[in-house]
């Protein structure tokens, strides 16, 4: 909403208040000032002048010479505009004048003739797009006057962001009323109901067949003389952001902007049946709106039709082309109606058609200014379109909408705001807004459809008191105890482990393209699709983090950073569980490392391998004290066929890790090997934990034995290790695999695993005999469990 200050001042005397103070007040009233425009600020030194005569340029066809009288003297300028003629009053930019764009006028020679300045078009003055010719000023403008005065460029326009609950502030009077209340100034507005109500006006009847959707319809008629509206009206409309069209249309727009009272003028002569029928459209019915587009309607759309029930306007949204006023119009029928807001909103949304009128109707205009607004338009028609109103009016308003009554309890206001106002103070705050309070009973005006409940009045009081004047406090409750949950602390710990391991955290978009899944080797079945994506790249919800994370790895490689270690911790989505309405969401953790681990100059850089990610998984397991995490070799989509494993805890698969498949690396143009892991973080933190109790540290010496055990290649080393740990029992302190060896001597398909096994008792030094027994127990267990042989 663009509100020119001069227009606001017609309703409340703000003359002595600084513009900045008015802007602050608007902000504090909740009518947020997005911008303050001072259209004349960039125009300097341009004055009113009269063209004395126009003569051809001696050396050019397309420019002419004009002598102008600017009050203090006469000068000659060169001008290319086709519309200049002797006697015309025009804006004259003298040498030294400044135009918008910081453009300073200089004395110039054009084809040998000196031009002592420039005549200006509307566009050159920053007044819109019209560049067809020099702007014509009123004939009676005093020569030499600054054009800013004449054109109203000395005005200030507040560009306001009006919240949806304040339709009244989509009219100048609504803004003026709030400002008057804020500054304690009077607010005055003339309002007159139209003449006596009759069944018809100028022979036109109005039949409302859908009174629920059109609770009120006021019709007035007048004869008019079509033409342009006067400068002052055009100027105001332009400042308010609307384009002047014709005197009749401009008046309807003017009243809409001034009073939040949308109107529509029909050419009564082109209205078949000389009457109005308001009805719901038929499914499939069409109407060509005045923007020339044919609109297809449904039975939930409301039409304003002519007397023969042919649609002439989509009610409250846009008029039709057929009965549009034109230069040939001589009599008009003025529609001033109240349409039910949600119906307008639905039709406007479905058609994708919004107008200044629909924006107001859908928020709720005042049903009770339909008459007074129409009267105001008639006064203006008379003034600018030589209108002769037809006496009388039609007013179909079967169930008048009354002012609502709301209870407002002083104690409640004070308790919610944290203030101590008396009931008189509350009444005094609300009165200038048109809200009458008697005891606890408030009567609210119909131009404020947002005021329905006590809380709405509490808000009005807060607005009037001013939020900056409400004392600030902090709630204090003995039950207010803050903290992160164990789950939240664990998630932080997991991220910290990754950071400690040298991984950088990234966020990737949770919206993916199906191709991203294919590139990562995943299938795109059972994914959740976005109904209305803006583009295919963001059309599904990610079922896993790795597709996006690998894309980030590739992005970095493409930007000269092939050696990266990245992780992400975020939500992934799966189709709803049976009976659920929402997708199954869980928190996933993925990490990936690519190309080289940087070690130069000390040692050669080394290619990443799967043990880089198993190390991180170990660190996570230790930090979170997960009791049982195992890796099981498995074929996992997107990973190398024999360099991948599933991650299990408590026998349940919670993720996978390994080397990324070559096909994936190629699809994403990844540089070098990439190793990665993705695990269900929710499942990991929910897994059984090792108790926090500490195992005592022995003071006695340890006994170590080395065992080289030959097993079939393919037996997981971790299995052998677990067998050893079980066999060693309580006295086993540590098992460490220190060598893996294959040779012909061992035989085809055999591998030697060399373990350092360390025993220690808490309370004594173990004897050689005891250590021998323990050692043999370990050997026997591995031989039995894995068909191993002891390598001698």
């Amino acid at each position: 909403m663009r509100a020119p200050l001069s227009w606001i001042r017609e309703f409340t005397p703000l003359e002595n208040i600084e513009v900045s103070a008015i802007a602050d007040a608007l902000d504090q009233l909740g009518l947020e000032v997005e911008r303050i425009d001072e259209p004349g600020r960039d125009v300097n030194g341009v004055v009113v002048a009269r063209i004395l005569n126009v003569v051809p340029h001696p050396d050019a066809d397309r420019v002419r010479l004009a002598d102008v009288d600017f009050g203090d003297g006469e000068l000659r300028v060169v001008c290319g505009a086709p519309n200049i003629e002797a006697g015309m009053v025009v804006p004259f930019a003298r040498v030294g004048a400044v135009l918008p764009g910081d453009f300073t006028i200089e004395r110039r020679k054009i084809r040998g003739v000196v031009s002592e300045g420039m005549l200006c078009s509307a566009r050159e003055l920053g007044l819109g797009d019209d560049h067809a010719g020099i702007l014509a000023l009123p004939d009676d403008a005093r020569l030499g006057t600054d054009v800013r005065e004449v054109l109203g460029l000395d005005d200030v326009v507040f560009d306001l962001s009006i919240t949806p609950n304040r339709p009244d502030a989509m009219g100048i009077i609504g803004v003026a009323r709030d400002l008057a209340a804020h500054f304690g100034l009077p607010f005055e507005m003339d309002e007159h109901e139209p003449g006596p109500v009759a069944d018809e006006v100028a022979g036109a009847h109005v039949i409302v067949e859908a009174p629920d959707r059109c609770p009120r319809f006021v019709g007035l008629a007048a004869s008019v003389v079509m033409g342009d509206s006067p400068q002052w009206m055009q100027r105001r409309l332009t400042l308010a952001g609307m384009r002047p069209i014709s005197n009749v249309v401009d008046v309807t727009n003017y009243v809409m902007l001034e009073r939040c009272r949308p109107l529509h003028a029909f050419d009564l002569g082109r209205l078949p049946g000389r009457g109005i029928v308001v009805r719901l459209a038929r499914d499939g019915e069409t109407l060509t709106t005045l923007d020339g587009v044919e609109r297809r309607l449904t039975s939930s759309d409301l039409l304003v039709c002519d007397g023969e029930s042919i649609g002439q306007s989509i009610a409250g949204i846009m008029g039709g082309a057929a009965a549009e006023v034109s230069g040939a119009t001589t009599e008009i029928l003025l529609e001033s109606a109240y349409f039910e807001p949600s119906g307008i909103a639905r039709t406007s949304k479905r058609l994708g058609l919004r107008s200044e009128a629909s924006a107001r109707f859908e928020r709720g205009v005042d049903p009770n200014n339909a008459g007074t607004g129409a009267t105001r338009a008639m006064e203006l028609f008379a003034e600018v379109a030589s209108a002769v109103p037809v006496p009388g009016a039609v007013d179909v308003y079967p169930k008048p909408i009354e002012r609502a009554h709301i209870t407002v309890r002083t104690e409640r206001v004070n308790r919610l705001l944290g203030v101590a106002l008396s009931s008189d103070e509350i009444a005094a705050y609300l009165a200038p807004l048109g809200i009458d309070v008697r005891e606890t009973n408030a009567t609210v005006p119909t131009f404020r459809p947002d005021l329905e409940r006590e809380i709405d009045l509490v808000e009005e009081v807060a607005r009037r008191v001013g939020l900056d004047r409400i004392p600030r406090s902090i709630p204090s409750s003995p039950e207010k105890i803050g903290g992160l949950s164990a789950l939240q602390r664990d998630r932080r710990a997991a991220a910290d482990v990754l950071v400690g391991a040298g991984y950088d955290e990234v966020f990737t978009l949770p919206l993916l393209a199906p191709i991203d899944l294919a590139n990562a080797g995943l299938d795109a079945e059972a994914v959740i699709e976005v109904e209305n994506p803006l583009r295919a790249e963001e059309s599904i919800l990610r079922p896993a983090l790795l597709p996006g994370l690998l894309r980030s790895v590739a992005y970095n490689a493409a930007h000269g950073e092939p050696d990266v270690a990245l992780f992400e911790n975020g939500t992934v989505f799966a189709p709803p569980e049976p009976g659920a309405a929402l997708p199954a969401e869980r928190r996933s953790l993925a990490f990936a490392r690519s190309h080289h681990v940087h070690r130069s100059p000390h040692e050669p850089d080394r290619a990443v391998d799967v043990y880089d990610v198993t190390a991180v998984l170990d660190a996570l397991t230790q930090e979170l004290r997960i009791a049982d995490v195992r890796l099981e070799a498995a074929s996992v989509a997107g990973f190398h066929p024999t360099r991948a494993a599933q991650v299990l805890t408590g026998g349940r698969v919670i993720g996978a890790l390994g080397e990324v498949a070559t096909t994936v690396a190629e699809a994403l143009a990844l540089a070098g090997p990439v190793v990665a892991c993705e695990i269900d973080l929710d499942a990991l933190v929910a897994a059984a934990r090792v108790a926090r109790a500490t195992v005592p540290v022995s003071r006695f010496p340890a006994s170590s034995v080395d065992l080289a055990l030959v097993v079939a290649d393919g037996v997981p080393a971790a299995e052998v290790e677990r067998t050893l740990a079980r066999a060693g029992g309580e006295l086993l302190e540590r098992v460490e695999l220190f060598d893996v060896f294959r040779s012909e001597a061992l035989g085809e398909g055999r591998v030697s695993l060399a373990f350092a096994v360390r025993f220690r008792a808490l309370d004594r030094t173990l004897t050689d005999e005891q250590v021998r027994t323990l050692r043999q127990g370990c050997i026997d267990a591995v031989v039995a469990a894995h068909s191993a042989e002891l390598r001698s």
Partner: protein
Amino acid sequence: MTSAAELVERAEAAVAEGSDAFSNASSLTDLSEAERQFLGKTSVLNEIREAIKSVDGSERAVVGKAVSGAKAELEAAHAARRVFLDSQAAALSAIRDRLDLTLGPHEYVRGHLHPVTRIWRELEDVFVGLGYKVAEGPEVETDWYNFESLNFPPGHPARAMQDTLYVRLGDRESVMLRTHTSPVQVRTMEAQKPPIYVVAPGRAFRRDTLDARHSPVFHQIEGLAVDQGITLGDLLGTIEAFIHALFGTDIKARFLPSFFPFTEPSLEFAMSCVFCKGEGCTVCSRTGWIELGGAGMVDPNVFAAVGIDPDVYSGFAFGFGIDRVAQLLYGVDHIKNLWDGDVRFIRQF
């Protein structure tokens, strides 16, 4: 008989000669050779000690004293030279073993948290300090939680303020990527009775394409307090408190009335610009203020949706963008930087 005086003289000569040999030793080898010569078994001092037997009994003590005195002197001279030569050798080997510590480390030793995670944690910690717990909710929501329970009835114009991404589940436009973190308010109030003091940081979505200034995904933090006697003044004081905690006590809070369907009275809050302290600069568009977010008293219709009696309890809610705070504090111009995983960006944090 050997004269005592002669022996004492020889001992003194040995001290002089030995001390010279020690201090002239230029290496530990030379020094141990000299040590053997002057302090070893075949040394002059040992010869003198042997010769004591042949000295008259009454003078033996004089000679003995002279010999032990000479030995102590020689040992001291040897030790002094030893210390010198040791330290000289240590210095030489140190020079030989020199390492340039400015060579880079073996591997990256520390990764980096995303800047938004940093601010996210900082915000959580501030609110935990103010007595809040951290609540969570799903990122895909039903119409009920995202709109209707929050007092956005179907067809309400305020819905048009949200640009919603719907997902293909259930009835058309019934399931969506949440447009704000406010559904967590409703879920929290359904799950627990007042008093409630929670913040809900999380992701929200809107129908935008990722570019320098827009993202289809963004992070918000939502706050909710429901208790007996909560006032608008409590809301203003709480917002002021966290602005002070995050940005410093010299930063001012400003409140302007606004509209949200799920709060009333509703307001928007801003802080004085952290860069120009309110003087006006490019970050704050020369206004001196930086808009942060929206807030208000929980609307009675929201309480009705979750079965909390608005005559007994009152509450406030607030929300603001985490990304925006991160952008402000770290001077991040392009939103895209937060999402493309570029390590050249992330490694700055």
